[in-house]
């Protein structure tokens, strides 16, 4: 049934659930009596009257958005099934495309790394930390899940403002939010944590006033999906990492556990990202 009525049910019947799950004798209480009596049936009839009349209208437009029961952000807002399925398909296609591009960049990076080593012979410590094609996350379901999370983050006013206010070349690791790299191998927890911290950081660009928000939503929805990919792929690009001090990403793999433990304080992450220096 619709989320609303489901929630309604679970809260209304939460006592029953408790009995069911952990009560030592679910039968001794209302349940068994309900079986031969009216109490239970009556309640069920109530539910019955209520549910069907409720969902057609009350259902939130984004009721099929996965991963959460609550009304969700503007992703997956389109409520017609045809579009939903097409969006899903498009997302998969984009992920595939990204995968190819990312792989190419990694290969290019590996190659030029070797070149440089030959010429200068000094970059050995760095080299071992660069991701290689073998360490790439290729599980489609994982990538899709991550892409969705990223899209949720990017589909915000804050992100939009951030992108406008801070051009890419001015962003500094540790200070500015950086989209987590979906192609790296991370534990589920580590990834979710990175996303969380990234979103926390993005909130710094939340628009100041509340009015006019609804108006802007539509515009934002239009822009995102595509240029999103572009920004993300920027991550592993080699030149940037060479001429800036942005070693932060190299540190991420072995910081996984640290991040897992640091329960969501943004300041800590800034710290971890700075440590290599």
């Amino acid at each position: 049934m619709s989320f609303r009525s489901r929630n309604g049910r679970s809260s209304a019947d939460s006592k029953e659930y408790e009995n069911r799950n952990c009560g030592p004798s679910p039968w001794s209480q209302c349940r068994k009596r309900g079986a031969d009596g009216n109490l239970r049936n009556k309640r069920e009839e109530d539910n019955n009257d209520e549910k069907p009349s409720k969902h057609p209208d009350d259902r939130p437009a984004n009721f099929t958005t996965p991963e959460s029961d609550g009304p969700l952000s503007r992703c997956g807002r389109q409520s017609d099934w045809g579009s939903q399925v097409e969006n899903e398909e498009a997302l998969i296609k984009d992920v595939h495309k990204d995968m190819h591009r990312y792989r190419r960049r990694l290969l290019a990076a590996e190659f030029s790394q070797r070149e440089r080593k030959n010429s200068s012979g000094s970059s050995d410590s760095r080299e071992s930390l660069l991701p290689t094609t073998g360490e790439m996350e290729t599980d489609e379901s994982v990538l899709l899940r991550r892409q969705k999370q990223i899209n949720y983050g990017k589909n915000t006013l804050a992100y939009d403002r951030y992108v406008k206010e801070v051009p890419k070349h001015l962003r500094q690791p540790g200070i500015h939010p950086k989209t987590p790299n979906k192609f790296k191998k991370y534990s589920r927890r580590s990834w979710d944590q990175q996303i969380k911290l990234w979103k926390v950081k993005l909130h710094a660009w939340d628009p100041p006033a509340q009015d006019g928000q609804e108006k802007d939503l539509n515009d934002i929805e239009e822009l995102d999906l595509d240029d999103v990919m572009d920004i993300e792929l920027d991550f592993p690009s080699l030149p940037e990492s060479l001429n800036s001090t942005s070693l932060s990403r190299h540190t991420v793999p072995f910081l996984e556990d640290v991040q897992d433990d640091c329960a969501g304080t943004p300041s800590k992450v800034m710290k971890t990202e700075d440590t290599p220096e």
Partner: protein
Amino acid sequence: MEMSAKEDYKIQSFDPETQNLLKTALKEPSSVDLEKVADVIVDQSLKDQVFSKEAGRICYTIVQAEVKQNNGSVFRRRLLTRLQQEFTVREEIRAHSLQEWVCYVTFICNIFDYLKVNNMPMVALVHPVYDCLLRLAQPDALLNEEEVNCLVLQLHRIGDQLEKVNGQRMDELFFLLRDGFLLQESIGSMARLLLLEMLEFRAGGWKLSSTANKYYYSELSD
């Protein structure tokens, strides 16, 4: 599924003209009005219980053919739109014709089973399908053998897939089934048997043990 002839899409029940339309849609999708084809299929599914059980196959083939021919999705879009329209008025459908309601549920579940995106179930349909099945598990519906039969058929076919994409709602559904089985005295013995079978079926990982199978089906099979 249980059909042997691969090319048999059960379209014999259509009038000759429509049969032709469908045949062309299967071969040369871009040469026909695919929205009309979708409408024809949906309409027939709502009337014809036999067709609704297998309509997913023909839909799947048309979808594939359309993608292959011009990378289009006109047919699927129309199909889903129609499904959604009917979904929003499902209570009215049920009130006005149980048979049509059962056909609808059979059809949407069959589409869920056959049409995949990237080999995964279409996310958009997960909750609607659950909504339908949960409706079939409500106390008033459990009194209807037609609805119980339908529910059981659907769980046999797509229960495991559904549980994989959303286990929580499957739990919710099975709370209802247990409640019905235990507490609803007015349920007939046949329906009760089916419910019990479902409980065992899911508990066994969407399989029946051979003994259970014998118990539930020995009477039926010759």
